[in-house]
């Protein structure tokens, strides 16, 4: 059927199995909305994980969120909201056959997306430098406390470095089934004091020291696991959006939109709005809690 040519009288932009351009557009639009529902549910799993851990252990989140830079998060939020504006305008331009404007708006949206990713890379590398990583690689160094008003002693700095460097690389550790730090094996037997249900809430003023001598609640590392999982999956979606916009740009230069066929632009824009909305929730839930 693919090789069957469109019969005369059938708009070549309408696939052979559709009756009209409108039916084709409506089908694409419904398909896109259903796809976006699956995206929401994909992230939904992570939002559920977030909710479960936050409701059981709010102290972990209150402790952890201070290590995230609110200003950078806010900057990225603004950047993405602007990018939503430019892509919405791009849909309008495609509808009005303003191809030149469409191209510029697509470029602008991509620039915003790259700015977002650039800021994100900056945030990630600072977390990396300070050892604020996901659970098995979590080995905070003392200097990151500059931002949280404790200037920890150099000795604890040394100690935490040791812990951090004694950990095997995560991949090896995971496949070997041994823990990268603190020597506790990742066994099948839950360790009662460390299990999610058995945590004592350690107040911020508590002087009880963790092995890294930070004033942190037990299992604060889970916050960073969730942070990296949620923002990482979101980042992959931003990359996907950039790819989709590159494709649109290619289509624009090929002249695909000259006849006012804006369906593709509309679909990518819908996707991009969802990516933005998810970020706004991430910003609220990870950066702006107290």
């Amino acid at each position, binding site marked *: *059927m*693919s*090789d*069957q040519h469109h*019969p*005369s009288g*059938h708009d070549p932009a309408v696939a*052979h*199995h*559709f*009756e*009209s351009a409108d*039916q084709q557009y*409506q*089908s694409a639009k*419904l*398909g896109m909305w*259903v*796809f976006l*529902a*699956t*995206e929401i*549910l*994909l*992230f*939904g*799993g*992570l939002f559920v*994980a977030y909710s*479960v851990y936050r409701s059981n252990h709010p102290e972990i989140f209150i402790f952890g969120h201070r290590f995230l830079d609110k200003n950078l998060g806010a900057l990225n939020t603004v950047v993405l909201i602007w990018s939503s504006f430019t892509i919405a305008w791009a849909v309008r331009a495609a509808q009005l056959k303003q191809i030149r404007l469409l191209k510029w708006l697509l470029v602008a949206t991509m620039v915003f997306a790259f700015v977002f990713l650039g800021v994100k890379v900056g945030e990630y590398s600072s977390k990396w430098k300070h050892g604020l990583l*996901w*659970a*098995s*690689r979590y080995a905070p160094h003392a200097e990151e406390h500059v931002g949280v008003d404790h200037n920890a002693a150099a000795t604890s700095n040394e100690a935490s470095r040791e812990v951090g460097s004694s950990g095997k690389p*995560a*991949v090896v*550790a*995971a*496949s070997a*089934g041994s*823990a*990268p730090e603190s020597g*506790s094996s*990742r*066994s*099948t037997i*839950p*360790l009662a004091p*460390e*299990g*999610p*249900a058995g*945590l004592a809430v350690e107040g911020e003023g508590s002087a009880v020291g963790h092995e890294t001598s930070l004033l942190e609640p*037990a299992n604060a*590392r*889970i916050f960073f*696991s*969730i942070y990296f*999982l949620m923002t990482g*999956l979101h980042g992959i979606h931003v990359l996907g959006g950039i790819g989709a916009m590159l494709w649109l740009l290619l289509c624009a230069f090929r002249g695909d939109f000259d006849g006012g066929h804006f369906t593709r632009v509309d679909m990518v824009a819908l996707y991009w709005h969802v990516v933005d909305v998810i970020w706004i929730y991430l910003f609220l839930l990870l950066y702006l809690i107290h």
Partner: protein
Amino acid sequence: METDTLTVAGAVGVDRVDRGSYLTAGGGVRSWLFTLDHKRIGVMYLAAILTSFFLGGIFALLIRTELLTPGQTIMTADTYNKMFTLHGAVMIFLFIIPGIPAALGNFVLPLMLGAKDVALPRLNLTSFWFWMVGAIFALVSIIVGAVDTGWTFYTPYSTTTGTAVISMTLGVFILGFSSIFTGLNFIVTIHKMRPEGMTWFKMPLFLWGLYATAIIQVLATPVLGITLLLLVAERTLGVGIFDPSLGGDPVLYQHFFWFYSHPAVYIMILPAMGIISELVSVFSGKHIFGYRFIAYSSIAIALLSFLVWGHHMFTSGQSGITNMIFSALTFSVAIPSAVKVFNWLATMYKGSIRLAAPMLYVLSFLFLFAIGGLTGLFLGALATDVHLHDTYFVVAHFHYVMFGGTVIAFLGGLHYWWPKMFGRMYSERWAQLSALLIFVGFNLTFFTQFVMGSHGMPRRYYNYLEQFTRLHQASTIGSYVLGLGFFIMAGYLIHSLFRGRPAPANPWGSATLEWETTSPPPSHNFDRELSAGDPYDLDSLRYDPNIGGWVRKNPQSILLAQGGTT
């Protein structure tokens, strides 16, 4: 809902000259692998899932052979663990989830709508390719270190075992996308491409089944996707979400997993119920009884399916009140299921029943699904579940629903649409023999397991007490009978492809639109533009002995020009 007919104004004249079918429309492997034709994609899916079914069946026979005697019979305990995991994973993810929607549904759905294709043909092909890639991942994992976790991949064992969990779960992740794409496509097609005259409540019930299935595929599968990604991240990076030693919660994995996998069993059974609704009407020669109730009950099952996942975890440490809520919700699933069964029975009442092979499968289904469904209530009841949990009773219940329900209905549908797909009739006599062997073999295999389970035989055990030997041996013999039934089926179906009597357009006397085109259909499906009337108005047909099939008493009645005013 605006639905327009599918005009191919210019094409009709051209295509009438070409009498070839979709099977002969293009030669060579490429014309198949890169086709956008839903019928070819359906046939490729059919070949692929039947291959998986064969593979999963071999694993099953090996498991049963090992269990002939206590202790080691043919394999070591480690191999046995891998065998039952592979049997489960292959049968669930490669065969039974895509089975009816992707193979039969892909072929039949656009034809039932009188349409030329599904709404998104490229996505349809993508779905098939994703299935292939996912299957390759799964096969690679079998070769490099077959998984021994059970098909549920429970943490923390799945994050610590040395077997190839990552490639298996990535395979399942990709297969999930394949399933999502099929479901998405069906939702869009059913919404946007129904022909004139086919309102929602004039759709064939198979489409209601596929629609309800598609809702679950689209809403539940992404949750499995993120769960498996978390599992992979747990193994590669150690994110700790499911790892108690890092502060995580392994029971959260079970919640995530069953949030998908309980609805997934309805992904398996709902399209099967759709097939039964079609077959029971046609082979009873009677209009379906209680159309609206059957249609609504499909949607009701789809919605309830999202609310009962906790019944897999009654013994996982949930609170008592949670258990009670999940138990009550589980019982409520019985209502729409029973609504369907009673409507099918009422359809048969005073009908003129033809015991052709598809109808034999319908009768098998009614019997086996009733047992499977009712034993589900034993397991949904809290007190009995504690006793029966993780015994062979669960295995038997699951197989009565999934094999006795879904696979039997799939076979019924396969026999029903086989003439439409390949334009050939199979040998009715051999088909009846095979249906009988499958029914007897199945009951021998799995009814014994109900008995064993209620006596306390735990599932998945390699070894067992002497007292279970006879029942295990009976079960194994049953599995061989079952295997023989399938062997015979493979024989006569393959034989029919080459030597079968050419099939008429409508061999069964069905009133749905797929029988209005030739068997097999041409690439563009229909030479005429059709409008839809009542899909179960069997009185509008009469048997024509000259062509050995059924024809419309008034052939004009379904043409668009006449039928636009329903």
